[in-house]
């Protein structure tokens, strides 16, 4: 047998730098390969990679939204032609998750978005994002309209707004199942804080409960199979749970804090600085949409529009009912009719004014629930992230009333503890934390 001994060193190291052109030529060794690759290359080249900007597109403003009922102001501003009316070219895009929205606002892929009011503070303090990242609040979009849904296994054991019965029921469940799970949408977000406030008011030990962040359809799916004890999320998900008979509405967020700030128009910092006039135009359009939405006569139409596939993609009747304040509570508890504190978008300017006091309240909650070990610089952060002067300009130009109650003390309906934005430490001494 011929035995040719060949050693590696003799061939040397073929670490030559092959230029791209030659390399591609070698790849196309066989003409048939080229023929088969060609259509793929064409598909690639024809669909432009998203993110490319050409001159005409520089003017488009990208606003993101999450498919929830309270994205209505942005959607209606688009659908009613209000953006066009104020001279801006806005494209709305549906996003996959709150984390997604956060990332895209920070990178600038989105100029602004329908966003949780507390997200900028959560992100800035490092609770829900990279500490120090700045997202700015231009205006508040909505009040109320969120709820806490409990699994039907609690049906009959605790009723609507029976907060005092909650602790016992949860304890019993913990004993039986060895764990109790609650879900919310984003760490440090509005739903997270409503849930924790409710648990604290009920006297539940938050350390022994699992509180997890998952997307809304997963909340519903889990509750269906008995893996979820309760969740706090925006409409239409609470209505959907009732409709499907898998859970019931325990308490709505307006019962926790009447007319609380919920969603805001959060914008990318650079956008707010370099395109200030455009941002003002956007805000004007959205403000007009908010006004339109507060007219009950328009809500049916609104429900129809936002229920469509490109937007919330949910049945219009479920959306409409809760928009009108008719809460079918589920679990044979009948219907609760909210008369003045269902989901509201304007309230003559009371809603939309972004209050620093509210921002401080949220940050105090982070300290209260052990998200933050040290007190953040409350006032400075609120000043930095809330574009209050910008809002005042816009509101003035539209003759919308600017409230004067910012930084004044207030208290929540659920626990009646006084909160003074100028002195959060006092509140923190009194407020119940993770362990009641």
């Amino acid at each position, binding site marked *: 047998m011929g035995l*040719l001994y*060949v050693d*590696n060193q*003799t*061939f*040397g*190291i*073929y*670490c*030559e730098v*092959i230029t791209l052109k030659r*390399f591609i030529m*070698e*790849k196309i*060794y*066989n003409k*048939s*390969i080229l023929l*088969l690759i060609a259509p*793929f*290359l064409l*598909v*690639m080249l*024809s*669909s432009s*990679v*998203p*993110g490319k900007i050409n001159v005409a597109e520089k003017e488009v403003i990208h606003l*993101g939204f999450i*498919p929830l009922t309270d994205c209505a102001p942005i959607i209606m501003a688009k659908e009613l032609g209000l953006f066009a009316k104020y001279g801006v070219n806005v*494209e*709305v*895009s*549906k*996003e*996959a*998750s709150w984390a*997604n929205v956060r*990332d*895209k606002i920070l*990178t*600038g*892929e989105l100029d602004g978005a329908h966003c949780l009011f507390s997200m900028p503070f959560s992100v800035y303090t490092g609770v829900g994002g990279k500490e120090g990242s700045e997202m700015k609040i231009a205006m508040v979009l909505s009040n109320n309209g969120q709820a806490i849904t409990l699994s039907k296994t609690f049906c009959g054991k605790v009723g609507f707004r029976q907060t005092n019965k909650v602790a016992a029921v949860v304890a019993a469940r913990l004993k039986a199942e060895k764990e109790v799970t609650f879900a919310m949408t984003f760490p440090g977000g509005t739903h997270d804080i409503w849930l924790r406030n409710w648990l604290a008011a009920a006297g539940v030990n938050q350390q022994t409960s699992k509180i997890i962040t998952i*997307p*809304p*359809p997963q909340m*519903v799916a889990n509750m269906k199979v008995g893996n979820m004890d309760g969740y706090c999320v925006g409409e239409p998900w609470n209505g*959907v749970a009732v409709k499907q008979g898998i859970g019931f509405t325990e308490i709505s967020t307006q019962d926790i804090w009447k007319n609380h700030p919920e969603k805001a128009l959060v914008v990318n910092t650079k956008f707010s600085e370099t395109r200030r006039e455009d941002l003002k135009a956007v805000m004007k359009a959205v403000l007009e949409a908010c006004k339109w939405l507060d007219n009950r006569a328009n809500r049916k139409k609104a429900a129809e529009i936002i229920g*469509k*596939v*490109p*937007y919330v*993609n*949910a049945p219009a009747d479920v959306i409409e009912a809760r928009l009108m304040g008719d809460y079918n509570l589920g679990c044979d508890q009948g219907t609760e009719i909210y008369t003045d504190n269902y989901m509201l978008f304007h309230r003559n300017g009371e809603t939309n004014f972004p209050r620093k006091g509210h921002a401080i309240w949220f940050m105090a909650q982070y300290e209260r629930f052990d998200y933050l070990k040290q007190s953040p610089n409350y006032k400075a952060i609120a000043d930095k992230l809330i574009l209050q002067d910008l809002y005042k300009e816009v509101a003035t130009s539209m003759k919308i009333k600017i409230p004067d109650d910012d930084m004044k003390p207030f208290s929540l309906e659920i626990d009646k503890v006084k909160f003074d934005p100028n002195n959060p430490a006092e509140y923190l001494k009194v407020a119940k934390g993770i362990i009641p």
Partner: protein
Amino acid sequence: MKRAIAITTSFTRELFSGSEEVSSDGLFKFFGKIFRALSNIVYSLLGFGILILAWQIISKSSADGLPTPIATFQVLWELVKDPFYDYGPNDKGIGLQLGSSLARVFTGFFLGSLIAIPIGLLMGANAFCRKVFYPIVQILRPVSPLAWFPIGLVAFQSASKATIFIIVITSLWPTLINTAFGVASLPDDHKNVAKAFGFSKWKYLTKVLLPFSLPHIITGLRLSIGVAWLVIVAGEMLSGGMGIGFFVWDSWNALSLEKVISAILIIGFVGLLLDKGFSYLEKKVTFSV
């Protein structure tokens, strides 16, 4: 009469024997081909039939969980009969969504191959490179694309670029490994020819190394495109916007399982086409010694 029977039986026997050399008669060959093609279709239909039957049974017994095959096919039909409608950025036909996903897949796959093939060539040809790179390959390969997403986001400051990044970083491994394997398994015979006749490095690369490795490279590419297609769906769920993956996510958000399953069927079908395309390529470049 007897003769007719004899001919028929020998003909059918030859058909079932499955050999290519049925007979020199062109007509027999033609019928043979048709018969084989039809029997393949029948087998496939049988397989799908079993699947659909199992599906029907599960959906009926799971009560309000899984939608039935019939309901799903109705939705599927709705989706595909008008695949290219465009009512704005958030509502596009399934064909356009697919196109958008495919574009991203091919971009990522192409970039990944650009990285994988040269490194694979290096690793296969040179023991030093192999020893240095292989541990890195082993560590990075099992990492889920979803874990890469945040890194991509930080690195590229853009969700859409991060999506392409995760396709690149997860789909390049099969190509890399197969290329390295192909190159390393180059028989000594061929190396000796190059050595004996004094082939230059370039000639060695283009006339010996690459042609030998090409079937392996294409196998690697075929596996990689499969991975890339898998990953795009997951990636789009994370990054939002447009594409078949985001369509699945959005349909889930709307609690429309029929659409989710329809999308799954479409995704599977496209994956099959991609695989077949590359298999065809493989056959074309494989030589027998």
